[in-house]
């Protein structure tokens, strides 16, 4: 498929019955949507499900896409909503059990190849603390952090996706970074105590 074709043209093609067009949109955006979902949810299996649901929802609502916003912003909004819905559902369920499982998954993720066991354990502790710190942020702060750190979107792009003013994006990110610093310090100390204990 021609890479010079814009996402908006791809949507038009998909609407006119081209079966390959929506597949191309998925190929272009699945990695970034997965990164966003992973940052928001902190678990690979949840992130995969949310990514899949995002594209399914987009496909179902393709006719509802008016072209007023970019396809990327539209997909991000759907993805953020999917993640928030998933988190609400998971809160209703037993969160402790899921957290335990998530920690196991995190351990699988961060099993490095070429580092010593001590360094690997330290790295695992640090990543676990970061995951917990990001996961404990309020959704409006978390999504800004994830879009910035995981997707490397510009402030303007985040503003477009979330449909909030640019200054709001910056102030949310500033607040999020301050909270993360505090939480990392707190979780880091707790983990250190656990590790030593």
């Amino acid at each position, binding site marked *: 498929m021609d890479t010079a074709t814009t996402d908006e043209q791809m949507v038009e093609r998909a609407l006119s019955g081209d079966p390959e067009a929506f597949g191309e949109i998925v190929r272009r955006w699945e990695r970034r949507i997965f990164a966003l979902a*992973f940052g928001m949810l902190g678990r690979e299996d949840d992130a995969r499900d949310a990514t899949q649901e995002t594209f399914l929802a987009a496909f179902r609502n393709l006719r509802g896409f008016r072209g007023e916003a970019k396809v990327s912003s539209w997909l991000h909004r759907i993805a953020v909503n999917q993640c928030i819905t998933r988190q609400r559902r998971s809160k209703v369920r037993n969160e402790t059990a899921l957290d335990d499982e998530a920690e196991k998954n995190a351990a699988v993720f961060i099993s490095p190849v070429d580092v010593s066991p001590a360094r690997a354990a330290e790295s695992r502790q640090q990543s676990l603390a970061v995951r917990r710190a990001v996961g404990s942020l309020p959704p409006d702060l978390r999504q800004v952090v994830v879009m910035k750190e995981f997707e490397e979107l510009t402030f303007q792009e985040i503003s477009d996706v979330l449909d909030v003013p640019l200054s709001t994006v910056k102030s949310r*990110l500033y607040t999020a970074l301050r909270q993360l610093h505090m939480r990392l310090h707190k979780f880091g100390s707790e983990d250190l105590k656990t590790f030593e204990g």
Partner: protein
Amino acid sequence: MNQMKQRPVCHRAEDLVSYLYGEASPTDARDFAEHMEQCELCRTEFASFRHVHESVVVWRNQALGSVSIRPASPMKDEVASNYQFAPRQEKRSARAALREFFARSPLWLRGATAFATLLLLALALFAVSRMWTPAPQVATNNSEKIFTKAEFDKAVNNEVARINALEGAQNQANSNATNKSPIRTVALQKTARSQAARGLRPRLTPQEREQLAADLRLIPGREEDLPFVFSDEPEQ
């Protein structure tokens, strides 16, 4: 958390964020860098946020790989480049990088890479084997020796002289033994004598010369393999 809320906030907090992520204009970045030299709070927060950023990037790289989702925005100012975040690239071994490449590549790309590697190895082996093979020899034994025309003629003439001598001796023996046809013997003797007097030998047809040459192993059996073309007339 209350502790965080109680911490003072500089009025340029938003500028700090823009500066950190390299999204301030060159003028704004320079201006904020000057401000940071005076503002201890901004300096402290910059260091804290940098640590947070690096921790999040480590987690992201471990979970998603160190490949950037999108290229980081370029640094906009020399001053800012001293402070702003640089995209973190973890140092990894070539083996780990290769493993990640194969893990992330689609099946066709893995297959194509493997095929290209095998092809390259085969070509390298072929080139090495060619280097070690001795050059082929044009003629490896005497049977394939190519004679010159002079050598050929000399050998044929020698053989003709030998046969003539043999035949002459045989004829003499026959005439002495039988002597039943004196007229024919006398005629043959006359012919031989006259030929000997003229220094001539019996003429051979081209076919006979060719057969003779083949018998002497001077030429290959087939005409197209001859080292030169026979003339219709025998040489005198």
